[in-house]
């Protein structure tokens, strides 16, 4: 947005012309002879150890939109800090993927700009200009369909769409139609609005496939929620850990890792996945092209795709992208995978075209359906 900077610059420059030049900050201590910002793999640093040294020299990592209780990111961030002694500055845990990119824009050139992103697929596809390509050391372990060929963005984990419920108040729903019954009056809520939030979008997707439809047309899902609303069972409030704990939202559609995180915090909360079709969607790791700490950002990627962090995802209830390779190598945390069960059933994930079509349909129909 060249125009914006131009306008702003003129306005301020008139007031602070002299000090500007005197105070212009120079970036990066960069004692190493490697330009971390353009490195595309650990080899460019001269090996993983050299990467670790370069990252430690930077000392900090800015992450964004990583809540502690989302797929166990709290443990992952803490483990990274402890292992390498690099301070993790975790900003804006509650913002959406689109806002992550907006933050990269807003803070460009400042040292609080985000280094790495964890994005939904739609936003990742639309924002490749913001990313720097990088291939982690265990690149070969990641299936081809889960990564962009140069490493601009890579799938990191997925969950399946699940239903959490207050076991003290409502019975376990065994099929989608159960939720239309009298037991669930004023009980069902989503994690956000499907036209804005990935988790709610996925809930409509789940409803669609459970009603026998396909991901080409989300209408059956919209119709289900419309029916749910007419029955008085759907409440438009945003489901959060607080509303779950207070008993307000007795049934919540959310990613399995989110619902599972609530079971340890709130007594009486249980999670179930409906039999039949299982809806999944991967999130994506990406490195910012203008990262203020490029070496630390790349080290973070190495860490996230390594077995240690990938197992932590399992503990958090998410399915990591390298699970097939880990199972083969025997590095999977057996207890963790036993606790959440394998990803079985008829797994469906939307393609880009299906997502776009569904977004357009929801933008048109959703407000009227539940209004």
């Amino acid at each position: 947005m060249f125009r914006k900077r131009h306008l702003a610059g003129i306005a301020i420059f008139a007031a602070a012309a002299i000090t500007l030049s005197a105070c212009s900050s120079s970036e990066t201590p960069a004692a190493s002879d490697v330009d971390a910002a353009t490195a595309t793999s650990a080899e460019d640093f001269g090996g993983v150890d050299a990467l670790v040294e370069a990252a430690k020299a930077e000392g900090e990592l800015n992450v964004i939109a990583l809540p502690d209780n989302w797929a166990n990111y709290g443990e992952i961030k803490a483990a990274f800090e402890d292992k390498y002694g690099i301070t993790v500055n975790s900003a804006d845990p509650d913002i959406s993927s689109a806002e992550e990119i907006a933050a990269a824009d807003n803070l460009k050139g400042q040292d609080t700009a985000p280094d790495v992103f964890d994005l939904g697929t739609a936003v990742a596809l639309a924002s490749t200009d913001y990313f720097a390509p990088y291939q982690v050391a265990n690149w070969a372990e990641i299936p081809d369909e889960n990564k962009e060929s140069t490493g601009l963005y890579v799938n990191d984990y997925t969950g399946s769409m699940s239903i959490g419920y207050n076991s003290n108040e409502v019975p376990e729903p065994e099929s989608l139609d159960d939720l239309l019954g009298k037991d669930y009056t004023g009980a069902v809520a989503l994690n956000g609005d499907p036209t804005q939030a990935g988790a709610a979008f996925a809930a409509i997707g789940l409803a669609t496939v459970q009603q026998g439809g396909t991901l080409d047309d989300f209408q059956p899902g919209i119709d289900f929620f419309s029916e749910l609303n007419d029955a008085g069972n759907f409440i438009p409030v945003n489901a959060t850990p607080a509303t779950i704990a207070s008993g307000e939202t007795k049934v919540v559609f959310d990613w399995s890792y989110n619902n599972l995180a609530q079971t340890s915090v709130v007594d009486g909360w249980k999670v179930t996945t409906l039999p039949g079709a299982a809806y999944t969607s991967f999130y994506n790791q990406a490195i910012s092209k203008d990262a203020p700490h490029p070496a630390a950002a790349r080290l973070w990627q190495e860490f996230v795709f390594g077995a240690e962090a990938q197992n932590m995802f399992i503990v958090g209830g998410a399915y990591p992208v390298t699970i097939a390779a880990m199972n083969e190598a025997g590095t999977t945390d057996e207890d963790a995978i036993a606790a959440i069960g394998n990803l079985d059933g008829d797994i469906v994930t939307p393609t880009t075209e299906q997502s776009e079509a569904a977004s357009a349909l929801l933008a048109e129909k959703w407000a009227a359906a539940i209004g």
Partner: protein
Amino acid sequence: MTKNAVRIGTEPNPVVRWVILGVVGVVFAFPILAMIEFTFRDGLSGAHTLDHWTGLVSEDAARTYRNLFTAIGNSLLLAVVTVAIVLVVLLPTMILVHLQFPRLKRVLEFVCIIPITVPAIVLVVGLAPVYAVVVRVFGGSIWTLAFAYGITVLPYAYRAIQSNLDAVDVVTLSEAGRTLSADWGRVLWFVLLPNLKRGVLAASFISVAVVLGEFTIASLLNRVNLQTALLQVGQSDPYVAIIFALLALLLAFLLLLSIGRLGRPRRSGSGS
């Protein structure tokens, strides 16, 4: 309070006074009490427990407290600088306009209400490029955020001071002072400010409250203040989040009470 005052209308009937304050007080205390009750709940079972409160002093909390104390310090610093901006930039301008530029009054009022019209989430889109330059000039420290906060509190501070300005006959007072050979500095400090004390204090109160409660701008510019730190702290546990929100409210309340003590009239000499 005398029966005479009630009769002529300068004071309400004490019964009326306490009924109004009582009803409003109960209605407003109710949501806060509901939040407090929630923090004692033990999951969804309906029982109650002290665990959430006692957990605050456990060992894990140490790391989060470090961040929280930094954040409180940041917010207090921001509050001080914002109030300084209000007192040093806004107040003299308002007095000047009131005295010298009566036709600009509407313009000033409009300017001061714009910040509240544009939601913070949109304003940040425009603030970000400005701050890119500010950071280069002033550095990236937290106090520069006060420039944006000064704008955010403009509507509230303006209204509080203007209510007072309208009530006190500033024109006559300043003329009287000038006739008695005081220069503008003395008129401002010794004549006008004591009369505007209520409004200035109210403006400071609301500014401090706004700064302590502000979340969006700090969050979108990736700075750490009290509210963003509270969000981080509350991430893992909804009970802890509510407890800290309540404690933050209490902190703000006590802070404002103590500021209010500072502005107390000296002796019962100041009447009406």
